[in-house]
C-alpha cells in the first residue's frame, strides 16, 4: 500500500508536463481551433518522440506497457494545456483493439495508431443496426469524428472497426463550443464493418479508459485553472492592493484547491483500482469521472470570475479551459448519471 507515484511515474509526469507546456502552447492550440481541432504536429511528436501513445497497450503488441495510472498522468498533463489532441478517442480505440481485436485486426491497426500514422476514434452506440455485417443508422456528437481514419464502435454485445473512407459512411464535423474537440455526426448507410473478434473484451476496457482519460484531463484543467488564477492574483492590483490579498478572493482559491485535491485522489484511485483489478474499480470510476469533471467546471468558471473582464474575452485562454470543462462534464455520462450508478450500487436500483 503506497498511494504516491513511483519514481518512474514521477519521471513520466515531469516529462509529459514539460512536453505539453513547451509544445501545446496557446498559439498552437488556437491555430488548431481555427482548422479541424487537432494539432497534428503535436500528435506526431507525442507518438514518435515521446512514444507515449502506446501506454496501456501491452509491450508484446508494440505498446509501451504500463497502465491506467500512467495514462492518467499523460491525460492530466494534456488537459493542463487544453492540448488539441485526439488522445481520448485514441486511447479508447487502441485499447479496444488490443483487448478485443483478432491478431489480424491488431496487426492492421495497432502499429499505425501507436505511431500516429492513423488516428482512431472510439464511440458507443445504442442505435446502430447491423445487418449482414453492414451498419446503418446515425451517431451524434462523436468527438474528433471529423479527423479519424478509423472508428471503433461499441454497442451492447458487439463492436466493430469501420474505416472513415468506407462507402456509405458520411461524416459531418460541426462547429463545436470546445473547438479543440469538434463533434461530428456519422451517418451509416449499409457500411461494411469489421466485427471485433472479442467484443466483450473490448467493451470491458472502453468505458474505463474513457472515464479515466476524461477524469484525468479534467483534473489537469482544474489545476491549470487554479495555477493561472493564482498567478493573476499575485500580479493584478485593484483598489490599490494585489487582488490576492482580498480574503474573499483567497477563499475562492482555497475552495478550488479543496476540490482539486479530492479530484486528484479520485482520478488516481480509479486508475490504480483498474490496474489492480480491485473490486472498488467500478465505484472509483464513477466517482472520478463525476467529481473531476465537476471540479474542472467549477475551477474554470472561477478562473473567469476571478480574472474579471479579461476573463471572458476571446483573447484570454480562460474560455478554452471553460469550454473544455463543460465538454468533459457532458461527454461519457453526466455527473448526475454517474452518481446514480453509485447510488444503485449502494441503495439498489431506483424504484
Amino acid at each position, binding site marked *: 500500500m503506497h498511494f504516491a507515484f513511483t519514481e518512474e511515474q514521477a519521471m513520466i509526469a515531469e516529462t509529459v508536463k514539460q512536453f505539453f507546456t513547451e509544445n501545446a502552447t496557446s498559439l498552437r492550440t488556437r491555430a488548431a481551433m481555427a482548422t479541424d481541432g487537432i494539432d497534428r504536429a503535436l500528435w506526431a511528436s507525442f507518438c514518435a518522440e515521446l512514444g507515449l501513445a502506446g501506454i496501456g497497450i501491452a509491450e508484446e503488441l508494440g505498446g509501451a506497457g504500463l497502465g491506467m495510472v500512467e495514462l492518467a498522468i499523460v491525460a492530466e498533463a494534456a488537459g493542463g494545456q487544453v492540448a488539441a489532441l485526439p488522445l481520448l478517442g485514441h486511447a479508447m480505440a487502441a485499447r479496444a483493439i488490443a483487448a478485443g481485436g483478432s491478431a489480424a485486426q491488431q496487426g492492421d491497426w495497432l502499429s499505425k495508431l501507436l505511431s500516429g500514422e492513423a488516428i482512431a476514434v472510439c464511440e458507443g452506440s445504442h442505435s446502430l443496426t447491423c445487418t449482414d455485417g453492414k451498419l446503418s443508422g446515425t451517431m451524434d456528437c462523436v468527438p474528433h469524428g471529423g479527423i479519424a481514419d478509423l472508428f471503433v464502435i461499441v454497442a451492447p454485445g458487439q463492436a466493430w472497426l469501420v474505416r472513415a473512407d468506407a462507402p456509405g459512411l458520411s461524416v459531418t464535423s*460541426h462547429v*463545436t463550443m470546445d473547438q479543440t474537440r469538434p*463533434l461530428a455526426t456519422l451517418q451509416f448507410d449499409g457500411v461494411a464493418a469489421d466485427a471485433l473478434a472479442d467484443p466483450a473484451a473490448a467493451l470491458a476496457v472502453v468505458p474505463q479508459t474513457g472515464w479515466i482519460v476524461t477524469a484525468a484531463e479534467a483534473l489537469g484543467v482544474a489545476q491549470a485553472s487554479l495555477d493561472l488564477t493564482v498567478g493573476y492574483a499575485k500580479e493584478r492590483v485593484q483598489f490599490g492592493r*494585489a487582488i490576492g490579498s482580498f480574503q*474573499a478572493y483567497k477563499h475562492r482559491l482555497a475552495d478550488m484547491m479543496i476540490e482539486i485535491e479530492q479530484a486528484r485522489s479520485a482520478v488516481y484511485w480509479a486508475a490504480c483500482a483498474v490496474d489492480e483489478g480491485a473490486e472498488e474499480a467500478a465505484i472509483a470510476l464513477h466517482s472520478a469521472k463525476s467529481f473531476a469533471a465537476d471540479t474542472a467546471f467549477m475551477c474554470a468558471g472561477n478562473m473567469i470570475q476571478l480574472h474579471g473582464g479579461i476573463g471572458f474575452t476571446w483573447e484570454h485562454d480562460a474560455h478554452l479551459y471553460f469550454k473544455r470543462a463543460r465538454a468533459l462534464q457532458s461527454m461519457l455520462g453526466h455527473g448526475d448519471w454517474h452518481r446514480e450508478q453509485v447510488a444503485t450500487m449502494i441503495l439498489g436500483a431506483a424504484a
Partner: protein
Amino acid sequence: MKLGFSPEEELFRAECADWLQGQMAGEFKDIKGITTLTAKAERRKEWEQQLAAHKWSCIGWPSQWGGRDATLAQQVIFAEEYARAGVPGRVNHIGIELAGPTILTFGTEQQKARFLPGIAAGQTIFCQGFSEPGAGSDLASVRTKGRLEDGEWVVNGQKIWTSLAHISDWIFVVTRTEEGSKGPKGLSFLMMDVKQPGIEIRGIKQINGDAEFNETFFTDARCPADSLIGAVGDGWKIAMGLLAFERGVSTLGQQMAFRNELDAIIAAAKANGQASNPLIRQRIAKAEIGLRLMRYGALRMLSNTDHSKIDGAALTYKIQWATWRRSLGELAMDVLGQAGEVAEGSEYEWGMLPNLFLFSRSDTIYGGTNQIQRNLIAERGLGMPREPRGDL
C-alpha cells in the same frame, strides 16, 4: 400592499398591447423576437424613432421632454407588454434609462434642452464610458484625463467594456479633470460625441465569439465646455446617482428577457424528455421561483418611497439576477445535453441558450463583480467596516 391593477390600468395595458402587437405584426415584423443586443442595429434605431413618434419611448419621463409622466403601475404594464409582444430590447436603453435620467436630475435647463429631445426621439444613441483597463470594478481609479482648453474639454485615455459603443452616437465619460487627484475626488462627468476623430472604437471579442463590448480610445477627443454635467469634480457623485437608475423600471424589461430564456429551457426540456428528470425539475422550479422573486423584488424597490432607509431589495438586486442568470445558463446546457455544444451554422455563432450559457459568465463581472456587490451589501446594507484600499 396591493399587487393587482385597477380597471383603468388594465385599459392602459390593452392600449399598450394593441399598439405593440400591431407594430410587431406590421411595419416592424422583421425585428420581432430578436434576443441579442446588437443584431439589426440600424433597423432597431428606426424602431426607437417609431416608439418616440407614438410617445412610447420614455413614458416615465416628464411629458415636457417627450414622456407621459407614467405611474409606476403603467411603467410596469408597459414593460410587461413590450416583452410579451416579442419586441426586441432597446438599443438606446443607456440613453433612455441612464443618460436621460442623469441629465434630468443633474443637468442644467440648457443641457436638458440640448440632449433630452434627441434621446427621447431615438435620434441620439448613448453608451457609457466608466470602466478602464486596470480598474475594472474600481471607478475611483479612473485615469482618463480631461482638461479645459480654449472653451473645450480635451480628453485623453482609454475606456473598456463600452457596451454598444460601435453603434452609438454619444458617450458619457468619467474623466479625471484635476491633475494629481486620487480616488473619487477630482473626477468629472462629460457628454461626448462618439463620431469624432479623437475617439476610436475597437470591438472586444468575447467568449461567445461575439463582440458587444468595446475598447474606446480617446486621443485629444473634444467636447464643448458645457458638456460637463454638474460641476467640475462632481463626477463621482453623478456616476453613483446614475448607477442607482440602473435599478429602475428597466429591470422589469430585463426580466422579461429572462422569462423568454427560461421559457426556451422549459420548451427544450419538454421536447427532449428532460422535463421528467426529477433533478432537472427541481432546478427548473428553482429558476422559476427565482425569476418570480426577482419580479417581486423589483416591485418592492419600485414601490419603496422611503429613501431614508437602505433599500435591501435594491441593494441585492444586481448579484441576485446575475447569479440567477449564470445558473440558468448551466441549467440550459444540462437540459440540452451534448447537443447544446454544437452550433447550428458553420460559424462560431450560438443560439439563444448556448449563448446564454457563455455570455452569462460576464453577468457576474460587469457592472460590479459579485465580489464587489457583496462588499457593497455588507458595507452599505449591514454597516460592516469598509475594505481598506491599498497603496499599490
